[in-house]
């Protein structure tokens, strides 16, 4: 089942020349940890706001849990937990009072609510601070409170807008491990981020968004590999000469060879067979290999390459 689906979703802001989100066709399967990746201003938040009924699409449709968010907003939002980029809190309510208030909005059964809220507060590490005013929380605590609120209805779908933005490294680590945990429990998680590293490590699938358009959707590894023909092998050698460089250049699959004193840089379609062949040629020609390192191309390179440096 598609948990999130959009058809030609487009948003043009009043007075805006270009669409902030342009004919977005997105399909997210249940159980995925989907990273919605793009630079600031790419349209990630706009898309999320349209999914969460916080913004009306100019054209196109968006479905959450199979419900059109414009036609059946209440049904669509029933089992969705949402953490906005900058969650706001009422200045006179404590963390726990916020959870009680949101529970009312979800129409949760009151009988087991106190225990449920206690567990959620413990899970997000806010139990100690439960009776402090939420406005006095740090940004990390605020996010975690919003996350606890998002988990109130025990949702199968979580939508998070830039969950680790502005957090300290500890906070980021906490949020990431919590997200992994929640994903392992079988929930679908849709998060937006402009941290490539975060998405690469965390997500099962990545959607690349640039200037309102979806460029590519795939696993992080597949995206990285799709640009691997530009990857590079660095070999620290002893006894290498220019003749060896010429020999290496003649190997099929090698596109470029550079020598920097004792360091060889070899580019090409570096398959395992090719790397083995390169090693063999070096050894046969009496070159000692001190170290060899393959420069893996990251999602960042892929992203830069796919958006052709327009970031």
């Amino acid at each position, binding site marked *: 089942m598609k948990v999130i689906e959009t058809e030609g979703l487009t948003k043009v802001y009043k007075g805006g020349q270009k669409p902030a989100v342009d004919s977005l066709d997105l399909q997210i399967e249940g159980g995925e940890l989907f990273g919605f990746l793009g630079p600031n201003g790419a349209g990630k938040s706009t898309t999320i706001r349209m999914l969460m009924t*916080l913004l009306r699409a100019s054209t196109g449709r968006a479905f959450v849990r199979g419900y059109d968010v414009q036609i059946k*907003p209440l049904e669509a939002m029933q089992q969705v937990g949402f953490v906005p980029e*900058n*969650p*706001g*809190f009422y200045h006179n309510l404590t963390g726990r009072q916020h959870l009680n208030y949101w529970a009312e*909005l*979800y*129409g949760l059964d009151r009988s087991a609510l106190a225990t449920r809220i206690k567990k959620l507060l413990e899970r997000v590490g806010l139990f100690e601070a439960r009776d402090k005013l939420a406005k006095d929380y740090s940004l990390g605590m605020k996010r975690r409170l919003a996350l606890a609120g998002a988990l109130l209805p025990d949702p199968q779908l979580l939508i998070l807008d830039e969950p680790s933005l502005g957090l300290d490294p500890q906070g980021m680590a906490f949020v990431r491990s919590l997200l992994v945990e929640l994903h392992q429990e079988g929930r679908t998680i849709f998060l937006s981020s402009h941290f490539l590293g975060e998405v690469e490590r965390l997500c099962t699938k990545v959607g690349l968004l640039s200037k309102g358009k979806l460029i590519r959707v795939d696993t992080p590894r597949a995206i990285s590999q799709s640009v691997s023909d530009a990857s590079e092998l660095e070999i620290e050698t002893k006894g290498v000469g220019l003749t060896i460089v010429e020999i290496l250049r003649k190997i099929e699959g090698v596109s470029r060879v550079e020598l920097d004193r004792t360091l060889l840089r070899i580019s090409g379609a570096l398959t395992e067979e090719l790397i083995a062949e390169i090693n063999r040629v070096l050894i046969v020609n009496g070159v000692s290999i001190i170290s060899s390192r393959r420069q893996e191309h990251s999602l960042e390179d892929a992203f830069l390459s796919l958006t052709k440096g327009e970031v």
Partner: protein
Amino acid sequence: MIIGVILALAVLGGTYAVTPGPISPTSVPKFVTYNLTYYPDLNATHPALAAFIASPTGDHLSGINVQLVKETGQRFGPTGTRFQLLQTNGTDSSGWVRFNQLWTSYPNSSLGLVYPDLKGSYFCCVSTAAAISPPYKNTGSATWHVLSLGDSSKETLSLVFTDLTGQPLSSADVLVWRVPNATSLPYPLEKGSPPDGWTLKYKIGTTDSSGFFINPLPYDSWAYLVRVRSVGLNSTFLFGSFYTTPSISGPDTGLTFAAVLFVPTILPIVSLALAYDAISREKSEGTLDLLLSKPVSRLGVALGKILGVVGSLVVPLLIVVFGSAALVWGRAGTAPTGSLVFGLIGSAVYLALAYSLLFLAISSLSRSLGSALLSSVLFFLMFGFFWSLIAVLIANLAGPSGSVGWFQAITIIPLFSPTGVYQQLLSFFISGPVFGPNVSTEAPLQSPLPWIVAAATAWIIVPLFLFAWAMKYRVSQS
């Protein structure tokens, strides 16, 4: 919260302060209001004026200044300024004052009496007599009198009947004959005998033990002939009459002040404080995103906001009104009129609802908290203060004071403000102007009923629609 308590205490205190204590015959307060009674029916056979002044409890008041004035040619008008002061006499120990030889001294003049020391509810009973000098005896005439009821439906026929010695005429039948074609009346007054058919079928009541009679008369004519008949007495009696727009006195004074002065000022301010940020603050502080992304309908959120704001206004309002009523009761010794208490509550709830909806609509349509506050304050100043001045301005442009155009403008323009609608609703429950120490209020002229209904409905429907529309299609949607 603290401000709310202070405001509530201010209303209670103010209400208490303007409520007079039980009326005592020895304490005649100083009032600046001029009550003018106008006597066009002096002639050669009725050349004198005698006035008798009593408190509502029937006590005759001595030492009260009464001014004899002469009209200086202009039409009798509501301003009452075109009069020349001729004489000032004080009432004697029995409450009587007299002006003799008027016809000789001021032939063919229109004379009047002004009571600078009196306000509202004191009775000034005047008759023209052939000769008024002690010892006061029955004059054998003046058994009827024309009452001109002015231009307000709030006029009440208030009479006291007494003989010339000041003895009250109790248990006397009061008969009223409405003058047909009253447009030609009251000036010049028809002379001659009372109309045919002075029978008990014209009886509208009897005087009480103090000789007092108070009865509201319907407002479909301008003049009444009134006659008193005391069964079993052969002698005729002087009967004094005074037509008045009875001012509110006793326990209703304070409540009327609260209704006219305090409620329409304080209630919109509190409603502004509660409503201007209801949506705009949620927007600016980011709480709205979390709220609206929950499975709650936007119209449900709007309804919740309305109930929250109006509920926060109505509960303290009920406490303050009932508290005021209890205080007033305690001070004046009698309970305030029930219809005033509940009419005040009903009108005030309307006012709270109308302003709350207006400020909620502004809150939902504003881009920021600051602009919501600014717009709300501007609207409050506009409708709560300046609109009544604008109405007067427009009325004066529409025609000279008292003309048809002026009257139409002055009764309809105020309805374009919720405060104006409130005053109109209130006017159904307030029986007249009210005067207190250093303050006075006027009951507004009554607007045409269909206009009141239309305006009252519009001030609810339009902001309600705007608020609902903004919540559904504007807030976090564009």
